């Protein structure tokens, strides 16, 4: 009986977790204003309460794809993480029912900071 109870308990927890979090996909453009280059990007964003995780995919000519994490409070979404091995990204912006828009900072070791902006729209 114990395994069955555990199975039921786990199922209930997963259901609860699934119902508490939501994943949204945003696509759009990131623009590195330091080098004046833009590229398509995709962000799979999961919000669970105030916790946010995201999978960023950036297409050429820019680089930077990987997992980001941060927090979301009443429209303010902040994500950061180290992608492509050593590229530190920090996104901050406002997320509403339509899009996520703001600025970011990209830092590589021994390189000067690069600045950028992004505009990602929620896919319906």
């Amino acid at each position, binding site marked *: 009986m114990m395994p069955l109870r555990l199975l039921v308990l786990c199922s209930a927890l997963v259901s609860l977790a699934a119902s508490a979090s939501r994943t949204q996909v945003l696509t759009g453009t990131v623009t590195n*204003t*330091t080098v004046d280059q833009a590229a398509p990007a995709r962000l799979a964003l999961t919000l669970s309460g105030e916790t946010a995780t995201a999978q960023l995919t950036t297409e050429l000519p820019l680089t930077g794809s990987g997992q980001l994490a941060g927090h979301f*409070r*009443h*429209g*303010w979404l*902040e994500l950061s993480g180290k992608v492509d091995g050593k590229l530190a990204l*920090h996104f*901050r*912006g*406002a997320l*509403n029912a339509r899009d996520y*828009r*703001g*600025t970011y*900072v990209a830092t590589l070791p021994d390189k*000067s*900071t690069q*600045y950028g*902006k992004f*505009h990602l729209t929620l896919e319906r």
Partner: protein
Amino acid sequence: MSADAIPPPTSRPRRSRWAWIFLGSFLLGGCAALALLFAPPIQAWLIRRAAHEAGVEVVFTDASVMPTGIKITGLDLKMPGLKARSEPIVVQIAPGRLFNKRELKIERVQARKLRVTLTPAEFAASPSPATAARQPFAGLFALLQLPLAWALDDAQLDGEIAVIDGGQPLVVGTFTLQGGGLSAERAGEFTYELAVNSSVLPLGAENKIRSRGRVRLAQGSQHDLAAVTIEGDLEFPRYGRLALPPARFHLSATAAPQGETYRARLDLGPDATFELDGFLDKPAGKLTARANVRANQALVASLAAGKLPTAALDGRADLTLDLARNDLDISLSGNLSASNFSALAAELSDIPLVKGTLAAALTRRGGKLSLTRVDADLHAENSPARIRIALTQPVDPAALPATPLATVALERIPLAWANPWLFPHGLALEPAELAAGWQLQLSPGRDALTLEPTRPVEIPAVRLKGARLPALPPIDITFRPHATLSTRRAALQLENFAATTPKGDRLSSRITASCDLESGRIETTGRISGTAPTLLAGPDQAAPFTLTTRWDATLAGTTLNLKALELVARLRRDAPPWISVQLLRPLELDVAKLTTPKTAVTTDWARLQFSGFPLGWVSRWLPGYDFAGTVAAGESWVRSTAEGKLAFETTTPWRLADATLGLGGRTFFAGEATIAPGLAVHADRYTADIQEISARHRDGSRIYGSITAGVRLGERKAATAVELFCELPALPHSEATFGPLYAALRAKSHNESTTHAVVDQFSLRVLGRDRELLLLEASAPFDAGLSTSGLLVARTGAPLKLTTGEIPLAWLRPWLPAFEADGMLQPAEFHLTADHARIQLRPIKPVHVRQFSARFANRDIARDMDFRFDLGADATVICTPTPVFDLGYTGAVHLTHGAIDVAGQRAIDLDLSVSFLGDETRIYPSGLDYTTRADFAQLSRVPALAGTGLPARGTFVARANGDLLGKSPVEFWSRLHGIPSGDGQRTLPPLELSAQGRFEPETNYLGAAIRLQLETQPRVTDAFFGARMNLGAGRLEIASRFRSQFFDAAEAFAFVDAIQKSRAPSSPPTRSPSPNALPSTPSAPSAPALEPLWSQLRGHFDLDLGTVRFAPYQIDNVRGRLDLRDRDLVLSNLNGEMFSGRWRGAARVDFDPQNPAGDHAIAGEFHIEQFDSARILQTIFPTELASVDARIDVHAHVRSRGHAILELAERAEADFTMEGREGIVRLRVPKQDLAASAAIFAGTVGFSSELQALGRLLRKFAEMPVHQLRIAGERQKDGDVVLTEFRLDSPQARLLAQGEIAHVGGTDLLNRPLALSVDLAAKDEMADILGGMSLLERKPRADGYRPMKEKFELRGKAGAPDTRPLYDLLAKAVLGSKGTWGFLMRKLQDQVNKSKTAAAKPTPAP
């Protein structure tokens, strides 16, 4: 050999024998003759003879018989001016006709590669028979006459043609000629094609003149030609910008009875025509001709579209030639009109239409040519300007005399025509005219043309104006210009030059200049002297100048010989010089190397001295600058060493005394200064330095140091060292912030190439009164210079380090007028890197601002906070320093990770990126990306922010993105979440505002479509409207529809109230039972406002609202207009639907900040027509049947005065009337849930007669028809409603009442307590019932109703009155004076219960 040698024809023999013999002999002889005739030598002889007859010399080397004729090789044909050579040429002549009929019949001429050479010079020089015998010209056809008849059957010629001039081929081309059929009886026709190269264009297939056409020849009766006609086409190649249209021409010469007529016509398309008609009058011996030329504007335009003036001309030439005496008369006349001279040069745009005439006459008498008349006149239309050229005397063009030939006169030429050249420099001449005159004369040697003035050039009262020029007096200018021009030399001499003003200025000069055109040697001498009391210094300054300048110089190659040079300026002629430049001895200078011939010793060549030279007058010539003071002393020398090396040395530093330098009305320097400029020329380098730089301001500030530059000419290398130190006063707006400044600039650099320098050391340090403000230093050399494309670029191997000290942000205020910042910027460090044209600034550590405060558009957005952020910048700078300085840049400033913490908790997050672009004069913000989050709960913990309008809790997230130049939209979005209500008792729903629009940088407006969304329950409040935001004034200007599907006015007011409460001094919270109700008690009086409730909103809305809800009431389909002005808000034409009635109204709010009783005053009126009273009552009391069911009209007038919006609502006074007709009034029976009530209603049979009467009465009250209902009253300032009239007319009852509805804060009107004193009267059945109950007076009133003996009072709620007092009265009537309705009901209930019990008992079985 001559034609006479040809045997005459023989006669036929008479006798047969002899005839046969003769015939045989003749045949034989004929055959022999024929054979002989066809023999090459004979044919060749015949050709030579025929040619000789025509005056042509023919030589050939060989002739051979061919089946088709004779083939001649090596043919040379010569005439005066014409040579032809062919190899081979086939000519077939009919010899029989030559001998038999003396007719030269050329059956065929075929020539290939015929080379024809024309030498025009030989035509004139040829000893033609006519000139040899001094015979007059007998006509063209006489020249082409043959002594015998002739015919040409077929000619096929092709070859080359050349025109030789001066031994050189002028024209070379090819031709073909085909045709024939020419005989004495018949005209011959030939076709030709000709293609010759243009003499003015290089050889090439495209550069040929081509002609194609027909030639028609007709013989006359004397073996001559009687008519020649040539007609064909002409095509010209393009001559640079000139493109002549295809031409058609016609030439004819026709024999006439008295001579010959000649006609020629050339048509250059439809736009130009040349015509010539001539006639040779043989008997009179005269040749006359008239030529007409016409070209219209289209021709000139077509020649080079847009590049030439619009011009048209027509001309005529008449020629008469006396052939006997060779006298000639030619007269020429022509007209020209030209305009649009700007096509030649844009600066000629002011020259109007110019018309010109030309008249000339040329004669020849006794072989001597004489040009007897030339008159040319050009005059401008609508202008007195005129240019005349006239021949002074008849002259022989071939032998011009050394006496005056012609006069040139310029009359009243407007100087304004020169303004287009001056405009680009900001200058213009006021209207003035120029007059001048010259004689043209050849020099005695006939090798130069001289222009001798016949009158001086006079320019009276010319005044030069310019935005950057002072007001100058009119200047009279006169001078006599002499000019000499030859093939070797050009010389100009200005004599008697005088420029005078009415103020006494007078400058005179004499200047000569000449240029040897072969060697380039230039010589010039001159002197300028005079006084300029006002011209330089202006009429207001007593600083007259007396100037003396003279020079004598020669420049040959790079060698400048200065024999004399002197410049002296002084106050008066007898005063010592203020400034003098004097050449001490003749100087020979290599201007390329700046060397002099070697001397044994150091030689002083020239001296520059200052002694009290005033500077104030310079201000007059440099608008915006203010100079004052003098160059009190200074002496410099131009010297050379023994080796001839030149140097400029200052032996006495230039000292500026009492000097003032101002810019834009602000004095930057006032004090004493010295500099000692120097320049030394070495073998391969210069050393330029400015030593002893020292300037001391009156306030004690000074700059001092030195600049030294060493230049190696051979290597094209230079090294520069700069050391400048400044002790400065405070910068503008900075005195209180930084106090005096000290700056030190140290730099050393050298160049690697002419465009590439290396800055070896660089340090710029700026210190304030008590701290270092800025230090920019390079830890390693960096490159700077020009790129291959001329851009100024730099490359830093290692970044420059920029360190800033503690800087108060208040210092920025003058530059950021809309944004007031306070706080202390803590020391910060940055790296500055450059890579080509890109520059990056990166923070080494976060920037920290302590006690940061900010106000934008007069609103506090931060106060006394610690603000940290990273500050970086990217920029691309495009700068071309030469030939024209040009600067442009784009970039962005990034403020990232901006954070404000309060007590360790994050209060504000902020990121900002502003892109920009600009040039040397302006910088434009071009883009914005801004995101921020504010936590009001944390911010409210900052004491300084209390009362600034920030809510006590909640968050605000906002972002703005877009283009600030208006090319693409700007988007703004914000969300307010968790904001407490004004009373602090609940949380208001989230509010989202989004806007999208375009920025209009020219007007500083942002036009946007704005959407508001308030997440009210159960339905979201929305609003959508267009507005333009005046960013300068921080004001929203509207002129649009205000649309909403649902608008919860109560929540909207609650939001406004919450914000206003936040701004006002805190007041104790009050309890509000309903989320949508107004506060329960009047708030503490609000403080007077500096701005109206509608704050920064201006304009008007056309209202279009689906539903406006002010719970529990709601108005549907609201339309109207809202005007928002500085001092009033007007709602007009309001209409809608409310409880099935038509709602309409109007209101205005006036703002008077000076009124202490309340800065806002409301006046309004509202009307509801035919609203359904049952609906409103059931909305509020959904479980109860409406006490009044009627269609009612409501009219209300409202007025109020207060500071805040809810205060206005609370203090509102109103008077109102309500009128209804033909409805139902239901008086609710107390305890109607009791069975007793039902029993009474049912009129239970067992009841007493009183109870049964009561039952009938209750049924009347339960559904009482109403003819008229009228309620009038007023709402008082304290909120109480006084009902001055409550009147109800029904068929059997009439109620007249007065009372009040007491104010209960936070409770809607219909739920407030009612106190109504009612006077009831009845008639008919109801009177009978009530009368039967002894409740009525016996005597009816005048209206027929019997009043009740006593009044009763209704209480309860306004929307649900408590009718118990009435029913108590009724019960009293039933039970006696001790009864109440409750007692009656209990009694009846007991009775009913008993009857029910009895009924429930089992009935015994029968």
